């Protein structure tokens, strides 16, 4: 059974930063999540509220 993500999305400050992502890791192994570099340093991110705002 393992790990299943199905159509997961997240919107921050009006933008869909995660758009319908699905991941299936049904047996032991390494799943590679790859992507372009982030621009996160321009934003303040709160772990507590999950809010994000531009600096």
């Amino acid at each position, binding site marked *: 059974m393992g*790990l299943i993500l199905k159509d997961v999305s997240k919107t921050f400050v009006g933008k869909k930063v995660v758009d319908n992502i699905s991941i299936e890791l049904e047996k032991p192994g*390494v*799943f*590679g999540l790859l992507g372009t570099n982030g621009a996160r340093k321009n934003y303040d991110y709160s772990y507590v509220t999950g809010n994000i705002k531009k600096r």
Partner: protein
Amino acid sequence: MELGKTTTIRMLLGILKKDSGEISWNGKIVKRKNVNFGYLPEERGVYPKVKVIEQLIYFAQLKGMNKQDATKAISEWAKVLKIEEYLEMTAEKLSKGNQQKVQFLTAILHDPELIVLDEPFSGLDPVNTEIIKNIIIDLVSKGKYIIMSAHQMATIEEFCSEILILNRGKTVLKGNLKDIKNSYPANRVHIEANQDIKKYIDKFNLSIENVVDNNYTINISNEEQAHKLLEELVKSSIIIDKFEIKKPTLNDIFIEKVGETK
């Protein structure tokens, strides 16, 4: 704004609330309070003024380990990670690479079944990269599930069976790495000859990507081109030390796919 990978990871771990979709582990919906995953966040951070062994025990206890088991596990892992000599030091005294190994240990110490590693190799020298790599391979052989986020394609290629490439939060490519690579025709051939073979390469209108001391990396559109070139070289009595047809690397595929979506 490109927060896709790390945001996905945070939702997976239950740290961040998702807006839609489902996340389950072994058939049960993931909630932060009922998961015991291991996590190495992208933000590196150890408590600088706390002794390494103390913070390792602290993190292990947070994850439900008792002090005795934690101490034993730390001692065993410290040998593998080559950080034994640092256990009694305050974390700030360690080099960045060693701090990262300590932080990596907090992710695996409590023997979680699912481990999420956000850029585990960034900033590590080749020796420490090798140590971490071998641990990961060993963890998988022990039945662990590992999600690794990275932008270093070469490392990912070595042991990821499944991959997902995100650009601006959207999936641009997903699936089994082997199958993905096999779906592309060969795009390069490496030839090591005993002499300059440029005129033969030019004869077939092929371009040389790189050449060092008669070691050629030649761009091709299909395998047939490579075989035709080889035939010609052999006919001309050129001595070939190496002939290797290559499929696109994950780096090639990534660039192509991400470039497509721009």
